[in-house]
């Protein structure tokens, strides 16, 4: 398969620099409000500072994929004498926690790096983090080229997955035969 260069956007997080102000949550939820900036509500934010002030834990995490089911991740990590839940580093919107879900509908939220037209220089959480706990990074990666699939292909593929390719072939053959007749 051919490979191509793709731009990967990510946010580098320096937990040591976070001052816990949650400006990232404020501006993220404002940017994604409709109309843009018309309201804000950290509960709708796609980035959250997971924190426990007295334990000195401050981890900004931005929302990733939606996960249908809980995972088995209940482990604890001790880093520099501080105990973190495994969840503290997880970006998933999942059933085991209330992060990254719309408060009214429960629908999952996912970071889109503030996709807009024109494109912003950096996502707003990064722009509003004056302490540089959040650093925007763009890098080029070689990725295997994927041909984009048509809707029909996606549909057929899921049917093939369910019924098997052979049965589908037989049905298609039958269908073409009956049309001819």
């Amino acid at each position, binding site marked *: 398969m051919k490979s191509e260069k793709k731009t990967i956007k990510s946010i580098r997080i320096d937990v040591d620099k976070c*001052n*816990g*102000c*949650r*400006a990232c949550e*404020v*501006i993220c939820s*404002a940017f994604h*409000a409709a*109309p*843009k*900036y*018309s*309201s*804000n*509500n*950290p*509960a*709708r934010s796609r980035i959250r500072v997971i924190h*426990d*002030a*007295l*334990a*000195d834990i*401050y981890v900004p995490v931005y929302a990733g994929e939606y996960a249908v089911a809980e995972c088995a991740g209940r482990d604890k990590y001790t880093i520099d004498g501080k105990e973190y839940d495994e969840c503290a580093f997880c970006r998933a919107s999942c059933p085991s926690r209330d992060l990254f879900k719309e*408060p009214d509908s429960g629908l999952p939220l996912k970071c889109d790096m503030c996709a807009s037209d024109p494109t912003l220089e950096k996502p707003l959480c990064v722009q*509003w*983090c*004056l*302490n540089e706990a959040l650093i925007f990074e763009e890098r080029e990666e070689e990725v295997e080229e994927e041909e984009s699939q048509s809707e029909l292909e996606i549909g057929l593929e899921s049917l093939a997955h369910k019924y098997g390719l052979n049965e589908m072939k037989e049905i298609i053959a039958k269908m073409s035969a009956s049309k001819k007749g």
Partner: protein
Amino acid sequence: MRYAETGFNLEIDLTRGSIERVVTDPIDTELYLGGLGTNAKILWDRVPPEVEAFSPENLLIFGTGILCGTPAPGCNRTIVSTISPQTKLMAFSMMGGFWAPELKYAGYDKVILRGKSPELVYLWINNDKVEIRDASHLKGKGSVETAELLRQELNEPKAQVAAIGLAGENRVFYASIEQGRSSSSRGGIGAVMGDKGVKAIVVRGTQDINVSNPVKYFDLCNEVLEFIKFREKNPIPGVIPILAVLGSPQEMAIHDEKWHTENFMWGNARLRRKGFWTEDVSDEWKKTMDTMRTRLISCYNCPMKCGATITPPGQPTYMMKCFSKLTYTMAAMSNLEFGLRIAQVATEYGVDGYSAPQAMAFALELYENNILTDKDLPDMPSDNEGRFYYLLDKIVKRDGIGDALANGTYWAAKEIDKGAEEYAHNNIKKHEQLPLKLSMLNPIYFLMYSTGAKMNITQIEGQFPQAPFPELKDREEFVKDWFQVPDEKFKQYFLDWEPRGEKSIPYYPTVEMCCDIVDWQEKMHYIDDALGMCAGLSSFHHKPPYHIHNLPKFISYGAGMEMDEDKISFAAKRYRTLIRAFNMRRGLKRKDEKPPADHWKKRFPELEKELLDSYYKYKGWDNEGVPTKESLHELGLDYVIEDLQQRNLLSEIEETPAKETSANI
């Protein structure tokens, strides 16, 4: 639709256990803005002067600033207002932190408490669900401890908690309300909360806050952030370290304490230690800070780092803010390690970091002068540090002599008698002040100390440099980019201000100029307190990112009310005057309006009289300090006129002075 504010207050009657969600009148917002302004209006309407701090009829109002919960950076303050048990006047102490925005997201602008709960309770405000819950298991618990226990009990790690410690429960006159990294400390507000039987208010909110002109509001916020970045790269030259940068101030981040330790007084505001800040001290204190400070932290939506998480080895972790860093250290004539250690205990107890150390230093001075004896202070340790811990316990538990000391130095001195009053020397209106003792009267500071209704110098000073710059070229440099001034004349005042000679203090700035300067300084604080803006990005600083030119726009584009510089100034004058009337109605007198007698060595009684006369006039007050009928009418405060007239407080202005007509020949 209401913008920026929610349009609802929570009214809680603790005697009856009733909770109401009340729609507020948008006209009040236009007239009094919000936060302190609308708090003051409610207190005027509902708390007559006969009501004492500990009457059930007293209200305890937690008011959010009108712009709290919007994206305006650093706008996060809760303005807590009530009657102070210590001054018997209106107390309004502000706290930053995270509580005010959370209350807005829960759907309320204010929580108004009245009555008294027979049992200790806490309030749980979770969006639309509001409950009064039993807190008997939290009795005697520390404020930080209480917050943690409640978050666990409710399984709400994201809830924000404002709680009192034992000092509040025992109605210590300088008890604070603690809220993580912030506190509402001045005026004994925590004692009123304790008197009402409320241990804590827990809040969780997940609703939207709207702004009226989203794009313009966003642009204003970005301008503020850009300015903050600019100031960080370009500190103001020629001023003390905490004023060269922004913050409220960033005491936990700034290591150089030469200015505070050598200019503020130690002990019971007595001893100035010139040359204290040696290299050895600097190294030792830096080491202490590096050992105990785990992280620099901020309040909600603010890039500053004014607070810190402090973990003294062997003690629980707590969060410290601001100048409490030095108050215990200096009162006890000790070092930073002691200061950070005892502040942990004091934070759990919930006491004001200004008044508490002073009450303790005062007690020790009485002991040294045989006014208090071993009988009053049984089993007191022999070292200063030990004595401070001993006294803190006695005060908070109101045990023995601690019962008197818990009322602050003014009231304690009266009770102890035997000449103790001479030692309660650092109060204004019965309230302990920062330990500053200086040489030459400063006319600007004279007016601020005398008339400030917050009775805390840091809550009225700002904007205008504290001292003249020696070189003209430095002054010229300073005024070059001073766009925050409301009028160009302030630049000239500063340019002409010399450290010595004709144009130096006490006669320059002139009386008239002093009135202009002080009024500007005070106004900016009052605006901040209505908006919920932190003084550390605004009124407290020279050349701050928020100023008279952009604050009205924040209101226009945020709250959707037409606002300009004149209108915002007029509104601020309205609620400032209302607070004045409220306090005059409660018995405040011109004779109470003075700095501590020993604040300056060189005093100028005639000039001071002229300053006060002129400033009263400037403010629209009569010679006794009562707002005049004319000024009240102009401000639309006719209901105040009526009330003051009934109480015979209003002087009738006569066209012709009485003296001239009395000549009866």
